């Protein structure tokens, strides 16, 4: 290589390096598809990343794990690196680096339950970020505390659900008392006509019932187990 050639190459590298961090943020936005190479099983991973009001948002699809449109959390994008997590039972972390053009790839690690596997994602199009459903308001007559009992595997459980309306939708305090006092984190409350649902996706519990004749008549679902449950207003 001649001296002029070397100088030209150095300039090119310096320009590339100077541009990359600022471009990287734009380049990261998009739909990314690829595989995590876990032992004896390639796991398909689809990540959607976008910027919204100056902040990163995203969602993930993992067909092999029943994960579809789950929101990304703790998204950190700095220079060429992007890291994020998927909370809930699956508990995933991805630490990725944007490879310089013409690679157009995000490569790094896929971590879950202490296991780590290499992952490479290729940009395949614009982002299609999914947003989780939002809680709706509930009817005025539903506000306050409702109670009921159900039996599972020979043991009685006492249930209390306390509804409250807020400007951005309803909330519910969902408590199940068996041999332990369990306060379930509720992430979704909705009412469609007389059908009311309360979901704790993190704990795998949900209640669904119809508000009729002053009672909430329906079922509680724990994982795949569905048990009839009638709630009445607490005295």
């Amino acid at each position: 290589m001649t001296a002029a050639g070397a100088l030209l190459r150095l300039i090119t590298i310096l320009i590339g390096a100077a541009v990359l961090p600022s471009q990287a943020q734009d380049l990261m936005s998009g739909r990314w598809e690829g595989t995590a190479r876990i032992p004896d099983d390639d796991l398909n991973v689809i990540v959607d990343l976008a910027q919204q009001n100056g902040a990163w948002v995203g969602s993930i699809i993992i067909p092999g794990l029943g994960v579809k449109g789950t929101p990304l959390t703790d998204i950190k994008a700095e220079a060429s690196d992007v890291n994020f997590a998927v909370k809930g039972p699956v508990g995933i972390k991805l630490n990725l680096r944007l490879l310089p053009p013409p690679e157009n790839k995000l490569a790094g690690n896929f971590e879950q339950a202490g296991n780590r596997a290499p992952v490479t994602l290729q940009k395949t199009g614009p982002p299609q970020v999914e947003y989780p459903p939002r809680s709706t308001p509930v009817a005025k007559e539903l506000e306050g505390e409702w109670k009921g009992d159900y039996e599972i595997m020979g043991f009685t459980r006492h249930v209390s659900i306390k509804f409250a309306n807020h400007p951005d939708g309803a909330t519910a305090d969902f408590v199940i008392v068996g041999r332990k006092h369990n306060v379930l984190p509720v992430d979704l409350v909705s009412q469609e006509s007389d059908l009311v649902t309360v979901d704790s996706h993190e704990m795998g519990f949900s209640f669904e019932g119809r508000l009729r004749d002053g009672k909430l008549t329906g079922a509680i679902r724990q994982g795949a187990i569905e048990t009839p449950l009638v709630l009445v207003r607490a005295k």
Partner: protein
Amino acid sequence: MTKRISKVVVLLVTLCAVRAIDAQSMFRGDATHSGTYMGPAPRQFHRVRWKFPTGDRVISSPVFKDNVIYFGGDDGNVYAVDAATGRQIWKRATNGPAPATPAIADGTVYIGSYDGRFYAFNAQTGALKWKFATNGERRFEAKGLHGMQPKQQTIADPFDIYLSSPVVANGTVYFGSGDGNLYALDSATGDLRWKFKTGDVVHASPALADGVLFFGSWDSYFYAVDAATGKERWRFHGGEDPMIHNQVGFQSSPAVVNGTVYTGCRDSNLYALDAATGKEKWRVFNDLSWVITSPAVADGKVFFATSDSSLYHVVDANTGKPIVRQQGKAYMFSSPAVGSDVVFIGVLNGTLEARDLKTGDLLWDFKVEKSKENDGWVLTSDRKFNGPFLSHSNWREAPILATDQQIRLGGIYSSPLVVNGVVYFGSADGYVYALE
């Protein structure tokens, strides 16, 4: 006089030796299933003496007689292997998986197979002596089992993994069957002496003490039956679970010691029952976690472990009061074996654990190679079952496939056998191991 004393000593030693050898030739040692083995046991792990490959998983527990190890394979074969070298002496094919533990008596190997036949082979040569056809094997099944979906679908239980292991006494061989019967056959000819009908699958192994057979059925009852006549002495009702059929059935096999029957149950209790009356003496409840392990009983203590909660327990044999409670890493179906001052137990994450008899502390463990590969991330990095990767769906075949994945990592369902300082056990990786 000295000569006479010497003769008595020699006779006693011989009798003890005979007892020690006999106590290794049936599931859980002998007919009472105490799970206690005489002689030395390794407090430290030195090496793998040998490992013997088969064509499929090994759920059966090895037994020992005259320096030969016998076991069944899910490849359909029954094996005789040199205990010292691990060399195959003979194998005989059945027409189905054989996840039962054989019993050896009077030069004969007795074992049942999923082909619905019960076999008697010559222990030295493997030659078939006779075989007996039951009404056919099947697994426990129920609609919406364990919350699997669709809930109106009848689903065979993937955790019903063992077949009943026989017990032999007084010229009769006894075993349970998926057809719901407990059978008593002439051990020399295979002729039916009697059969006792229960309401569902009998895959627990009968224990025999004082002329009475003790065993549980998936119909939720535990039975005591006269060994000579097949007449019921008493029955004990375990828990029921009409909704998802998860907390029902006796899969654990009992141990009978000092007039008390100890048995685990899927209703998550370990029960102590009066052997004469069937009255409950005490129970240990395990928070909806199955007790599949057959309890071992030694030194006034009962040793057992649980499935989902993965707890290793030692309780007082008279009262059920807790003595030791140790948190394990994964489900335990394998039954604890007491050898000298060590308790050995297999774990479904592919680990054999050796624990101190008194404290329950882990002395050493051995992980089968297949489990270290952790294909498909079935295990977390600390070797617990990785829920999200195993069971993200309860629909259709997904839970069954997840169980199969669990099994394929080399889970140890087999109950360890301890002979002369060596521990023998099978693994779902398809090998039988001899560790010293």
